[in-house]
């Protein structure tokens, strides 16, 4: 991770956890030859597409807002 300001770091941790839970981020880190940052951007794009958001690959405020919505605990990607 780059150096984040306080608050921003918490956002990144929230996003990382969300993508681990619902977009298979942790498992794919080992499979795909990408850095954590690249993989996170790829997964963010996938998430943004699913939710009809602007696909930026970045954790913009709208993406964070959708991530904080109540939801089903089943992941959005298999398995």
């Amino acid at each position, binding site marked *: 991770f780059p150096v984040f300001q306080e608050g921003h770091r918490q956002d990144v941790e929230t996003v990382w956890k969300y993508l681990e839970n*619902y977009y298979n981020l942790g498992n794919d880190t080992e499979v795909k030859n990408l850095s954590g940052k690249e993989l996170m951007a790829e997964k963010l794009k996938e998430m943004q597409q699913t*939710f009809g958001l602007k696909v930026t690959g970045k954790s913009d405020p709208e993406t964070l807002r959708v991530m904080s919505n*109540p939801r*089903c*605990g*089943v992941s959005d990607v298999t*398995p």
Partner: protein
Amino acid sequence: EAINSNNPRWTKTHLTYSILNYTPLLPRAVVDQSIAKAFRVWSDVTPLTFSRVFDEEGDIVLSFYRGDHGDNNPFDGPLYRLAHAFQPGPGIGGDVHFDLDERWTDTSENFNLFYVTAHELGHSLGLTHSNDIGALMFPSYTWYVDDFVLNQEDINRIQALYGPSPNPIQPTGATTPRLCDSPLSFDAITTFRGEVIFFKGRFYIRVSRAMPEPELNLIGILWPALPGKLDAVYEVSMADKAYFFKGNRVWAVREQSVQEGFPTDIYSYFGFPSSVTHIDAAVCEEETGKTYFFVDDKYWRYDEYNKTMDSGYPKLIADDFPRVGNKVDAVFQNKGYFYFFHQSTQYRFNLQTRMVDAIRHSNTWFNC
């Protein structure tokens, strides 16, 4: 169709279910009814049947848990993760777990147990999440209203796994509007604080100069107290208010809140005669404060300043709005024009010349 990897599905069509425990926030009978109703969502559209068992574990076990409950998917207290379910299979397969810490309801208040159960049972039967915001299988909890209708995408996906319902009358579901595929018809259209909002079924389509693409979402996300399938909507911009109509009821809204005293009936509030049972379309002419209500082939005029119906109405639409036709689905004002919509066509009516000067497809506002 998007289903789980390896296409897990139940190989039998008759499944049993059992309810292990209950939330203390609802009477047991309400939980039982909510769960039974959720099973009917899926049995109505497939050959699957479900029956409850009491003395043994069902194929699908439904239960409420708090926090870590030993399945590697801990719950997290109120909000956020509401529930989860396991894909078809023996043992834990098909089971549904609810977070005991949520406030479960049988109303439109968060979180409606029937709605969440119906979603989770989709997973129990083998469906993954959908990216169609109108689908039951969309991952986020969306606003629940009493007139729940399964989305056609959910029907297509479950029928891809289990086949169609044996019912001679095949069920059809609601569809999410596809803005650019072909011209659409609309239930209602209004300006709203400098933007234009189109209404179709449970959805709104918001068009703003600040956004390159229109925003499609559920009406309930913006206005939880409003019903879907509205008849008409208009804005009184000088009062920063909008009126929403369905049948003979009207809701006055400012920002996201329904005003006190609403919904009420159109007879006592506007002075319509009892023969008027609905409003097809409405628009307030900003410059004059006169609101036009279109009902079948006639229109009424209402004065927003005096709060009274103008005398001499109703009149025939065809007489005063030539070439617009005899029926209006939706209308709104943009600058010096009224834009009338009927089926998939829009008519631009010049308020100066009182003539239609352009006829186009209805979806020209979506930057297709």
